[in-house]
């Protein structure tokens, strides 16, 4: 039996203050035992001579300062990992919530992980097909990449996430798994995903971690780390190709801010703590591939941009850490284009090395450059049309308008259940590009 400490000095939101026991270490896991026997987990976030600050992941309601006991675990937070996790549902701390009981055959691992030595990394070079033309054709997702989706409230990014989870596949490796982390979602959203996994028959490939909007918000701080520890286990111990989808990272960052404020830290931009960048990086950088290992971790974090503002600290810092971004557009969404991907704002940085003859198709690179360039030109023409009126446009400019129209309605737009192979996507792109005269194909002619 481990030593237990009786009583607390203070409680403030999700934080409790304990008189520092001698053997307590920084970032150690502790268990708070309520008088009714209920146990909650927490960890040490500040350690002083006299007082230790502990964040309690299930929240502090019902805890009093008198007869509560604290037990030290002697090590940082760990989770149980097993192959059996595939097809199961867990809470933000990695405990089963689907009523199917505990894991049987498991190992335990520190959720913090260590940074991958840059020299041990393998440069990501092959792609994951999502069956979505806009993504596969123009911002190809590469194995080992971190490619976030920037959404806004009221845009159907859950549909896009669901579509990606359902359709994503790797042609030459069937050892493919998805780790899905749902933070701060409503019950209906969680149900929507669960049903979709079951109905489409992919459930056995997915590990789900969920923290619903009525669960303690503080648990969200834990979830990305837990989910990624699971992903690392699947990828680097079991050689699987793992796609991690984390939504909504804005909810995560808000929980982080909540704790930071309660701790009395000096706030930086918009009240977020000064270490937000390092903290987000410690999550996103856990994507990648390692030399000599078969598996890979690819991440698609999804976040909602507060007030549609891409320069808000959360999307801004995310964009600086990740290798590109997929931006959703309210304008396209209102036009009924689905998924409403804003092509010009989006980018996959690793695409250049993971497409072409060896991976997708030889014409892919030039074709995608051309689509970007022509669609960008279309925006100029549209601006001009607003001033002059369409009737006064030149023949060529009208072709651009037509191109833009078709590109949005036929290429970007896709039915929720429609999956296109990379060949179909590229063929479709050629068909639409032919609206423009060949002289305008500056990138292809290069």
């Amino acid at each position: 039996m481990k030593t237990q400490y009786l009583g607390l000095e203070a409680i403030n939101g999700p934080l409790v203050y304990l008189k520092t026991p001698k053997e307590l270490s920084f970032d150690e896991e502790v268990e708070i035992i309520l008088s009714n026997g209920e146990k909650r987990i927490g960890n040490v976030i500040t350690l002083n001579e006299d007082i230790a600050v502990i964040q309690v992941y299930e929240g502090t309601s019902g805890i009093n300062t008198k007869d509560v006991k604290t037990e030290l675990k002697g090590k940082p937070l760990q989770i149980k990992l097993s192959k059996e996790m595939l097809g199961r549902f867990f809470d933000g701390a990695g405990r089963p919530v689907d009523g199917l009981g505990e894991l049987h055959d498991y190992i335990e691992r520190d959720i913090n992980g260590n940074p991958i030595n840059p020299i041990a990394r393998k440069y990501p070079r092959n792609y994951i097909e999502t069956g979505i033309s806009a993504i596969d054709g123009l911002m190809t997702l590469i194995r080992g990449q971190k490619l976030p989706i920037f959404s806004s409230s009221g845009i159907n990014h859950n549909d896009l996430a669901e579509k990606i989870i359902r359709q994503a596949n790797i042609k030459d490796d069937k050892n493919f798994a998805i780790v899905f982390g749902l933070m701060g979602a409503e019950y209906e959203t969680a149900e929507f995903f669960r049903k979709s996994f079951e109905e489409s028959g992919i459930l056995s490939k997915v590990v789900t971690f969920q923290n619903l909007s009525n669960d303690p918000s503080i648990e969200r701080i834990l979830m990305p780390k837990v989910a990624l520890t699971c992903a690392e286990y699947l990828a680097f111990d079991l050689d699987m190709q793992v796609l991690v989808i984390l939504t909504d990272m804005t909810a995560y960052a808000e929980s982080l801010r909540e704790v930071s404020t309660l701790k009395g830290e000096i706030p930086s931009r918009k009240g977020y703590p000064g270490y937000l960048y390092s903290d987000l990086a410690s999550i996103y950088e856990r994507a990648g591939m390692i030399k000599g290992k078969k598996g890979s971790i690819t991440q698609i974090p999804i976040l909602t941009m507060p007030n549609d503002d891409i320069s808000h600290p959360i999307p801004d810092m995310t964009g600086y850490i990740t290798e590109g971004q997929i931006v959703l557009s309210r304008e396209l969404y209102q036009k009924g284009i689905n998924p409403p991907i804003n092509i010009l704002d989006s980018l996959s940085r690793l695409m250049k090395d993971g497409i072409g003859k060896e991976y997708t198709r030889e014409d892919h690179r030039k074709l995608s450059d051309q689509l970007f360039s022509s669609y960008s030109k279309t925006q100029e023409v549209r601006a001009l049309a607003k001033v002059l009126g369409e009737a006064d446009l030149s023949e060529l400019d009208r072709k651009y308008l037509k191109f833009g129209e078709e590109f949005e309605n036929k290429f970007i737009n896709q039915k929720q259940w429609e999956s296109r192979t990379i060949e179909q996507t590229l063929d479709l792109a050629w068909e639409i590009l032919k609206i423009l005269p060949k002289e305008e194909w500056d990138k292809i002619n290069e």
Partner: protein
Amino acid sequence: MDTKKIISINGSVVKARGEAGFAMHDMVEVGNYKLLGEVIKLEKDIATIQVYEETRSLKIGEEVVTTGAPLLLELGPGILGNIFDGIERPLNYLREKSGDFIQRGENVNSIDYTKKWHFKPVIKNGQKVYSNMILGEVVETPSIINKIMVPYGVEGEIIQIIQEGDYNVNTSIAKIKSLDGTVTEVSMIQKWPVRKQRPYGERLQVNQLLQTGQRVIDSIFPISKGGMAMIPGGFGTGKTMLQHQLARWSDADIIVYIGCGERGNEMTDVLEEFPKLIDPRTGRPLMERTVLIANTSNMPVAAREASIYTGITIAEYYRDMGYNVAIMADSTSRWAEALREISGRLEEMPAEEGYPSYLSSRLSEFYGRAGRVKNLNGTEGSVTIIGAVSPQGSDFSEPVTQNTKRFVHVFWALNRELAYSRHYPAVNWNISYSEYVNNLQDWYEENVSPDFIEVRQEVVNLLEQENELLEIAKVVGQDVLSDNKKLILETSKAIRVGFLQQSAMSDIDTSVPLEKQFAMMKSILIIYNYSEKLIEKSIPISVIKELGFFDEYKKLKYNIKNTEIYKFKEFDNKVKETLLKLEETYKNHI
């Protein structure tokens, strides 16, 4: 005992109390894991320490031991071609020791002490020597000779110098007796405090071009050897890509590339690619002249703060040997944010946007270390600093961009709209500038052509006029413009597509010699000037356009190889003849 005991732990900041006399910037070992840290504040008997490694699992009461010296870098043969973390620990060695993930508390030498180097003395017994004087040479890589120097502050007479032969870096290679009779043993390795600038003799004018092979830089917004430049740009504008291009193709002798708080996969890209790329000047792999410093964004923040200083100190070490060194720091914003993060943990009063008030002075100290100098040993060398800046929200008015802009002389502003339309490098020619153009006038005249500056100015003028015309055209439409204005637009477009845009993916276009850059500028001006004459004679621009020269020009960069510059003359002659002929036919018609 030189120890204090830990009294608080808050992220990367630890406080320790005790009688021991710690000094500011002392390097210390923290706790049972012996984590590396640095003293950053002293208050009575309490020292505040920033720890370069994860502080997880430290306990109150554990000991902090001072080494009695600041963080010292090891400088000697074996640095080139290597990749280090922010405090100069070799990452390949860390991987051998602790596997694919970086573990804590690994204290390793920066340089391999077991490797033997072939040392060749250039000095004899009895000779008088002084600080930084060259004692001998070591072929560090087939591209670079490391000049072994007398450590700074040592002066006297050589009483013993070792013979030519193979030695470890820590072997004593010389004994120097000073005036007061003390004898100092010197090895191939030097230790230098990371935050201290290495001294030099005097500053020289920065009037030599750093050739980068990038047209928009070399011809339009050039940087001198020993100069300083910044590359601000929001995410997705191609900062890192441009930094990589500069690291590849700059004609500096040595490149120090600092990946400060950036992406792990990007460092891997460099690591995989540089050994394969061949330096066009030496015919050797680029890696042989490159040092990489990688503190990716998930590595400890305190080491990120130090990485910039590690990089510049290594650069100064090679400068002292007489080399031209260029530093790419990607990104200085991450460094500034590391300052902010640590400052926040210290509970300092924040200034603008939460950055500490000393942000500006730290930036000026850093950029101030750039320059071309006469070294103490009489050689000439330079350190060029090219810092990427990642403005929050792509807003150039934020503190890091604004404060950096005050100190640097070259501003290569990357622009999101250009990047969207796949115009790379996305350097916005309307707001970028270089203050070195005048300094470099003589250099261009001597090395390229007497009329280089004039030709450059004409190109710049055309781009400026285009900018104004496009503003007008936005309102009235392009069709309303007169033919000579349309010609300006057509020419500028050709300049943008055919000259400013440069493809890093194309073997021909990725790096272009200055002769070709100059020929390209001249060619477009010939098209422009001859066409202008025709338009004066009322020949419509549509007729001129139909000849297809503008379109042909846009592809010249690919169609004329870097070794076939004479072909521009052929093209120019064809343009002249055709346009003159056109003039003739019109004359006959009228």
